[in-house]
C-alpha cells in the first residue's frame, strides 16, 4: 500500500523567504537625515537670533520707560524726605535742650551731597 498525492496535487512549496524590503541605499538615508538635522539646526539658530532681538526690543522698551518711572519714584522719595524733615521739627518741639542738641547733631561730616535719612539720630525716650 502506498500513499498517493492528494487529488489536485500538493500545495506549492515556499522556497523563498518572506523578507521585508530593505528600503533605499544607506547613502540616501544618510543624506536624508543629515538634511533634516541641518534644517532643524538652521531654524534653531535663526530662532536664537530672533530671541536675542526680542530681548533687545524689551530692553529698549524698558529704557524708554525708565525716566518716567524714575521721575515718579523721585517725587515719592522727595515727598518722604520733606515729610521726614517736618516730622523731626515736630519731635524737636517736645524735647529738652540736651536731647535737642543730641538730636540735631549731624551724622555725617561730608556735606558735599544730600543724604537721605535712613535713621535719624533720635533720642532715647527714656532720656527726656
Amino acid at each position, binding site marked *: 500500500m502506498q500513499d498517493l498525492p492528494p487529488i489536485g496535487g500538493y500545495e506549492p512549496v515556499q522556497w523563498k523567504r518572506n523578507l521585508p524590503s530593505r528600503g533605499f541605499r544607506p547613502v540616501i538615508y544618510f543624506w536624508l537625515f543629515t538634511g533634516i538635522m541641518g534644517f532643524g539646526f538652521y531654524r534653531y539658530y535663526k530662532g536664537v537670533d530672533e530671541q536675542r*532681538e526680542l530681548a533687545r526690543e524689551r530692553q529698549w522698551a524698558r529704557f*524708554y520707560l525708565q*525716566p518716567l518711572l524714575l*521721575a515718579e519714584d523721585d517725587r515719592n522719595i*522727595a515727598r518722604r524726605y520733606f515729610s521726614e524733615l517736618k516730622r523731626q521739627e515736630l519731635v524737636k518741639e517736645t524735647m529738652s535742650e540736651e536731647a535737642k542738641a543730641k538730636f540735631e547733631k549731624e551724622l555725617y561730616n561730608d556735606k558735599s551731597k544730600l543724604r537721605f535719612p535712613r535713621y535719624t539720630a533720635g533720642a532715647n525716650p527714656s532720656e527726656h
Partner: protein
Amino acid sequence: MLGEFNIARHEWENVDKNPLPADIPEVEEVGATSAPLLSAAYFIGARCKPYNDDFLLCKDANNGGTVECLKEGRRVTRCAVSVLSDLNKYCFDEFKLNYECLEQNNHNLGACRNSEKIFNKCVFANLKLTKQIPGVKEQIHLKENPIYTGTSNDKKISKEFLKSKESQN
C-alpha cells in the same frame, strides 16, 4: 508654625500720606499700568527723547539728583502723559487690542505682532510716531517671516478686529 522660628522678626509697612510741600509744583502722575506702558514705550521714547535725556543727564550731574531734578522729572512725566492721552484719544481700540494681548502673553512682545502692526499703523497715521529699535539695522517687529510669529489667538483676534473695523466704515 514658622512663627516660632521667626520670633525675632518684625515687619511693618512704612506708610507716609503727607503730600509734597506746597512750594513744589503739582504734576499729574502717569496713570497707565505696565502692559499699556510697554505697548506705548517706543512712542513715549520717540516723542519724549529730549526731556528724558535732559532728566537723566541732570540726575547724572547731581549725584542721583532726587531733589535737584524734580523740575526735569515733571517735564518727563507731562510728556509721557501727553503721549498716552493722545494714544487714548486717537488709537484707543488698537491700543487696547495690543496691551490686552501683551497682558495675556506674559508681556512678550514677540507674541503680539499682529495686533502690534495694527497699533503701529494707527499711531503712525495719527501721531506720526514710529517704533524704532536703536542700534540694529534689522527691526525685529518688521521682520517678514519670523520664527516667532505670535500666538494664534492674537492672529484670530486681530483679524476679527480688522473685519469689524471694515464693516463699520
